[in-house]
């Protein structure tokens, strides 16, 4: 509890920003869902034949898990991609069902005799709608808006997976570091926000259905709500980064968060430019897509990953050849691969230290011996990638009795340590290897391609901001595997703040470079 409060106080500015982003996401999407959903509801309440398929479609949308929805829309132009824009599309879709449904229900719930009285008095359909139907359906509609908004607060936490910002950032960050404090730092404000949204819309609902209130009172309540919403939206929009900032991204495990922060900080201090961080994105292909769609300017990729997972080239093991091939392929698509940072984060097949010592396991071949009584656990990417499990098990004749358990990469370390699985595919530079007494096995058959870490950036960005390029190139060759392991260890095991770790590293590095140049 104390740690949580300390975290909030230490990160109060960032917390404020994330909270603001979250509020903007929810407000904007709810407004849009109302603007689309209410007319849709009105339209279909009059056409029962349309209402049924519409409700069915909205129901189907609702059942698609939001993370999957973000994934579907990723490659779609205009509405997809990463960032707040794509997140808004998904949030609006999720808000539509409750609003359409309660609009239709509210309209249908009006007593037939009231409608008949209106028609008999010579009201046109529009007069009937505005003076009788909508006012009577309003409490029901607002109840639907309330549901949409509260659901929106929850869905918006997932939007952080595609870099839309919001309180989900803390939750994902906490998940990658397996740090409960950080998870709660995001989850608790989100829950409180949901309660606040629910309470304030409930108040609005009561105001609008209170017949005791005069018409002007109702208008006042509505106007206040609209003004508040507009203020929030414009402040959120104004808080957007200026267009001359560099967007640095990263994937969603600790090493990537560290590297992303490293690139961001060196640009900030050495090129004096503003950097917008979109760290913790959901995977290689999301980052790659974001680079192409200009939602990112750069991130750190691994040559072997680019070779197989992005460009689908056959696996080779010559480090320099792989680098050159990948650099050319990137160049053809308008991206520049900068010289490697200096370490090879190859896949490390890991077993428990106790097992390695007891069974004298040194190479993956040794592990293949034992695989008949083991359970394997892998991250989602390793299972999917061509250079992942499929190729490995063929190369080493690994035969596990059950198919491997698939889980979040970071969690697989703990699963190994706690005995839930016996073999995982981790990263050679992971801090948790030392921290959890895990043993890496030698890739004696040289199955894995090299995974040299290097910054890949949009060519256009580097050309426009040569000072940024110069800053990043200072990192090339200056981050060794030991450096990376130490940084990861400090983050994952000692739980230091990533920003602090990176800042210290840079200061030591710069000081050392300054000393050697004298």
């Amino acid at each position, binding site marked *: 509890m104390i740690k949580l409060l300390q975290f909030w106080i230490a990160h109060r500015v960032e917390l404020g920003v994330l909270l603001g982003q979250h509020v903007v996401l929810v407000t904007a999407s709810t407004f849009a869902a109302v603007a689309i959903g209410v007319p849709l509801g009105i339209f279909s309440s009059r056409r029962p034949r349309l209402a049924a398929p519409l409700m069915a479609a909205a129901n189907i949308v609702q059942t698609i898990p939001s993370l999957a929805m973000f994934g579907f829309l990723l490659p779609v132009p205009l509405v997809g991609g990463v960032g707040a824009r794509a997140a808004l599309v998904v949030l609006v879709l999720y808000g539509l069902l409750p609003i359409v449904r309660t609009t239709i229900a509210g309209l249908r719930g009006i*007593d037939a*005799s*009231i409608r*008949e*009285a*209106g*028609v*008999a*008095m*010579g*009201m*046109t359909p529009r*007069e009937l709608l505005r*003076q*009788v139907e909508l*006012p*009577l359906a309003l409490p029901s509609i607002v109840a639907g808006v309330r549901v949409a908004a509260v659901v929106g607060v929850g869905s918006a936490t997932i939007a952080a997976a595609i870099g839309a910002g919001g309180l989900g950032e803390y939750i994902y960050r906490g998940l990658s570091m397996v740090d409960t404090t950080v998870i709660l730092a995001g989850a608790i404000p989100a829950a409180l926000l949901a309660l606040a949204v629910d309470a304030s819309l409930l108040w609005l609902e009561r105001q609008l259905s209170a*017949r*005791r209130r005069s018409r002007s009172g109702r208008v006042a309540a509505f106007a206040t709500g609209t003004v508040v919403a507009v203020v929030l939206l414009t402040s959120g929009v104004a808080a957007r980064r200026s267009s001359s900032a560099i967007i640095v991204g990263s994937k969603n495990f600790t090493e990537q968060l560290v590297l992303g922060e490293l690139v961001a900080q060196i640009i900030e201090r050495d090129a004096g430019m503003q950097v917008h961080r979109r760290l913790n994105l959901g995977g290689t292909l999301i980052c790659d897509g974001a680079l192409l769609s200009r939602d990112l300017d750069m991130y750190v990729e691994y040559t072997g990953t680019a070779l197989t997972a992005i460009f689908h080239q056959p696996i080779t093991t010559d480090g320099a050849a792989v680098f050159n091939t990948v650099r050319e392929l990137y160049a053809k698509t308008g991206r520049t691969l900068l010289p490697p940072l200096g370490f090879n984060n190859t896949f490390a097949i890991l077993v428990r230290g106790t097992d390695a010592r007891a069974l004298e396991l040194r190479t993956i071949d040794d592990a293949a011996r034992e695989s008949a009584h083991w359970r394997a656990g892998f991250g989602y990417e390793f299972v999917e990638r061509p250079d992942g499990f499929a190729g490995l098990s063929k190369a080493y004749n690994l035969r596990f009795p059950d198919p491997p358990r698939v889980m979040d990469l970071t969690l697989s370390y703990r699963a190994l340590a706690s005995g839930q699985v016996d073999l995982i595919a981790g990263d050679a530079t992971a801090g948790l290897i030392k921290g959890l007494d895990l043993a890496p096995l030698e890739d004696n058959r040289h199955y894995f391609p090299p995974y040299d870490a290097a910054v890949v950036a949009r060519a256009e960005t580097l050309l426009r901001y040569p000072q940024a390029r110069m800053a990043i190139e200072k990192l090339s060759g200056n981050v060794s595997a030991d450096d990376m392991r130490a940084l990861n260890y400090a983050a994952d095991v000692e739980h230091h703040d990533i920003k602090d770790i990176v800042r210290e590293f840079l200061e030591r590095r710069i000081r050392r470079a300054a000393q050697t140049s004298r």
Partner: protein
Amino acid sequence: MPAPAIEFRDVTYARPGRPPVLDRFSLKVDAGEVLALVGRSGAGKTTLLKLVNRLLLPDRGSVFVEGRDTREWEPIRLRRRVGYVLQEVGLFPHMTVGDNVAVVPRLEGWPIERSRARVDELLELVGLAATQFATRWPDELSGGQRQRVGVARALAVDPPVLLMDEPFGALDPLTRADLHAEFHRIQDRVRKTVIIVTHDMGEAFALGNRVGVLEDGRLIAFDRPDVVAASREPLVRRLLDALPTVPRS
């Protein structure tokens, strides 16, 4: 002879897939006349009313209002000239009594002052003190008060024709007697063409210049009350017999 205010000519109306509610039905109502229609529930009385203000259109035959076929009337204009008091009244629950009554004047674009004055006038006409009732809400009123407001609302823009569907049905006999008296008082003043539907023979006799008895979509009696009272038709006799008699010693 002046054209009848309302005329049904050979009107047939059936709801889809059902036997006709009205079958080659004909009827004439003169201007300024009160026609009281009696019949069992489901005999077609409400349908008849709805054919006058074009909430329904006849399958065959024609309904004429002020000499024009309802099919040729612009529906909105027709309904502004025909006041309609529903059986359920159907007051708008989200509007005050005053706003309810003022609906049609506002739709017609009357200036606020004129609307307000008219609302006060009408509430007084139906026996509700304007200062007290104009700002009340429908759910605060008794059944009788609600029905009076319904009548006031129907009269708002002074339509020449008034259709009333069981307007006093849910009331206790004393209130009903009061309202009957008020009805006469109002009708003496305004002389509207009225079709009033009721299931109560006694009420029909009390209110109508002419009484019509509807059975199975046809008029089996249609004349002045005293003539209908002497009818030999079995249903009419049964309706008459069903009238409560006060025991005399």
